[in-house]
């Protein structure tokens, strides 16, 4: 199972690096770039996001703990104050029950005196009464007349019978004021029980809560175990109302939980149950207040995160753009180099083929030439005979045809130039003028305007005159056949840079299509169907390359063509075509 999953991932991962498209297509590079972007974004943004999430939770937890701790401390402190208060009152009642025998307390006067002392010493006491074992009120000091009332069936009486002491919930009593009751059971020497019962008002509860010094949006109050408010709350109702949330679990240590209030706002609800008393102290703080430092930090974290992602995306896009462009350029150059090698190889094999053909043809041609030459020699040396002129004419036309063949084989070989390869210092302007001298007649015959725009300070270059003549001859021939009558050919020479010079030959002729432009330097490619060998520009290209130069062509159909030849001032290579 595990292996299956890993294999699946492996396949997915590898498919990411596979490219089905042809390398030339623009789409290939778009997909390559897209994949690089996705990969780079994945390896940067995933860890960054993880880090962001981890720090988010870590910081949040830490700040929460820091915020919750004071709440716990305050809860604990206040709980102790409450317990102290209640324990004191309980002790006071217990003390009365223990210090005075039942009989003495049945005396209304004694009870009254004791009540007055308690009221003075402890405060908060509202009434005091004595109840015998049957639950009947024996004596009473306070605002009601309760003597003779039976508590036999009341819950509190049962509870005090069982547990010895009892503290009641708060209830609305005398003068519509919240109170609670403390009762203590005592046993006579006879074994009969009796109970001292005191009522205390809750003023002290309120003052204890005030003393917590709460912020305006915080709230604190006391609940009984049934969830009824024992002291008034700022936000959750008055005394005796039900607190809207259930508080659990029971905890005698301060416990803080995060929850939502009735307005759906986040709050920290802290509570603690009183030890051995039926109350719960609750302290509520709004989360917004507690977590303010966290909000600030979180905002900063978030902005840092977003900013980092922005920078990453920016850099990734820039880098992939540059990288893919470079790859594209390299591929392009590689392709170009391959094409050039192919081209050179083609030229080389054609050169070998042409040399072989030329040799085979030139030898019989030389024989024809000599035979016809001998014929003319003999005819010229003989006395006049019938049709002598015609014979001479015939022999001459054979010789002319041989001449034409010679021209063709020489051109085929790129041999129309001088035989010896010689490198020398050349004035390119002079070379161009010489070539024009060869072509000038044709140009003027067809009314073609050849404009010279030659830089007079053009530096001399070290190159081969014959081969350069061939180059310019070929290009100019092309130009002459491209322009119609009254066409214009402009020849410009200038220094290209420190190491090279540039000659451009521009015509306003028919121009050529993009398709033609792709092939013009290929051997045997010709548009002159009847009389072109398709070798002229191919040889030109070979010569220029061999001389360490470059040739470029720009053309637009109907507007003309511009050939630009760039030649190095110094050539280290030499040789033959």
């Amino acid at each position, binding site marked *: 199972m595990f292996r299956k999953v890993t294999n699946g991932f492996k396949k997915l991962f590898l498919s990411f690096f596979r490219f089905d498209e042809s390398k030339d297509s623009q789409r290939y590079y778009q997909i390559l770039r897209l994949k690089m972007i996705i990969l780079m974004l994945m390896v940067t943004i995933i860890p960054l996001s993880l880090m962001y999430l981890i720090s988010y939770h870590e910081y949040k937890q830490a700040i929460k703990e820091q915020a919750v701790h004071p709440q716990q401390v305050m809860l604990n402190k206040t709980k102790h104050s409450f317990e102290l208060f209640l324990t004191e009152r309980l002790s006071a009642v217990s003390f009365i029950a223990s210090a005075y025998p039942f009989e003495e307390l049945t005396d209304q006067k004694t009870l009254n005196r004791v009540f007055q002392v308690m009221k003075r010493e402890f405060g908060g006491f509202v009434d005091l009464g004595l109840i015998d074992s049957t639950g009947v009120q024996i004596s009473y000091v306070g605002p009601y007349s309760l003597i003779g009332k039976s508590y036999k069936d009341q819950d509190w009486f049962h509870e005090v019978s069982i547990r010895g002491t009892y503290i009641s919930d708060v209830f609305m009593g005398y003068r519509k004021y919240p109170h609670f009751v403390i009762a203590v059971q005592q046993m006579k020497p006879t074994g009969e029980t009796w109970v001292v019962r005191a009522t205390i008002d809750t003023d002290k509860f309120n003052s204890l809560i005030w003393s917590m010094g709460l912020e305006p949006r915080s709230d604190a109050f006391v609940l009984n175990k049934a969830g009824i408010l024992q002291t008034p709350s700022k936000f959750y109702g008055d005394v005796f109302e039900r607190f809207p949330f259930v508080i659990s679990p029971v905890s005698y240590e301060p416990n803080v939980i995060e929850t939502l209030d009735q307005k759906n706002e986040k709050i920290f609800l802290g509570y603690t149950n009183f030890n051995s008393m039926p109350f719960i102290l609750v302290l509520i703080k709004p989360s917004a207040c507690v977590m303010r430092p966290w909000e600030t930090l979180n905002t900063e974290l978030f902005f840092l995160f977003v900013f980092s992602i922005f920078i990453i995306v920016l850099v990734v896009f820039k880098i992939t753009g540059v990288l893919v462009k470079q790859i594209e350029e390299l591929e392009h150059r590689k392709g170009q180099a391959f094409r050039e090698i192919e081209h050179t190889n083609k030229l080389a094999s054609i050169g070998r083929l042409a*040399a072989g053909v*030329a040799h085979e043809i030139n*030898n019989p*041609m030389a024989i024809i*030439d000599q035979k016809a030459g001998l014929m003319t020699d003999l005819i010229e040396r003989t006395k006049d005979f019938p049709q002598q002129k015609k014979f001479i004419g015939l022999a001459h036309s054979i010789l002319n045809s041989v001449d034409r063949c010679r021209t063709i084989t020489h051109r085929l070989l790129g041999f129309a130039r001088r*035989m*010896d*390869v010689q490198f020398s210092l050349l004035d390119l302007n002079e070379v161009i003028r010489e070539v024009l001298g060869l072509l000038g007649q044709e140009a003027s015959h067809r009314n073609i305007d050849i404009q010279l725009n030659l830089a007079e300070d053009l530096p001399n270059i070290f190159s081969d005159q014959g081969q350069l003549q061939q180059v310019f001859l070929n290009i100019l021939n092309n130009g002459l056949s491209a322009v119609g009558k009254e066409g214009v050919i402009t020849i410009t020479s200038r220094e290209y840079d420190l190491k090279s010079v540039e000659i451009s030959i521009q015509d306003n002729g028919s121009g050529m299509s993009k398709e033609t432009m792709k092939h013009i330097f290929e051997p045997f490619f010709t548009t002159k169907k009847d009389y072109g060998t398709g070798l002229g520009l191919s040889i030109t290209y070979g010569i220029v390359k061999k001389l360490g130069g470059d040739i470029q062509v720009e053309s637009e159909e109907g507007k003309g063509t511009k050939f630009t030849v760039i030649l190095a001032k110094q050539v280290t290579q030499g040789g033959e075509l």
Partner: protein
Amino acid sequence: MKQWKVLLIDDEDEFVTTLAERLELRGIHALTETDGQEALARIKTDKPQVVVLDIMMPGVNGLDVLRHIKRSHPGIPVILLTGRGTTSEGVEGMRMGAFDFMMKPVKIEDLISKLSDALEIPKNQKK
């Protein structure tokens, strides 16, 4: 007019005999050979003033013949004549001491002017 003696060496018999005949018509004494080995023997016996030599020949190569001539008769100028379309052999021949290098088919007037150059005879004295 001083009689020139030229030895033409070329494996094409038709070519070399016709050329010789034409030179004879112009008063130049032309001997012919179609084989390198025999040509070398002929040079010894007939002592031509100048040699016209084809490079591409079966058997003994033109350049080998040239080397032998330059060794045994360094004073005899040799004009190379070839139908081959590369310059490298021409350049090689020039380096080995050939007087000049010509390409077939060659015009007879050009050949004669080259011969006179080789024999250091001004053109105006030729006729």
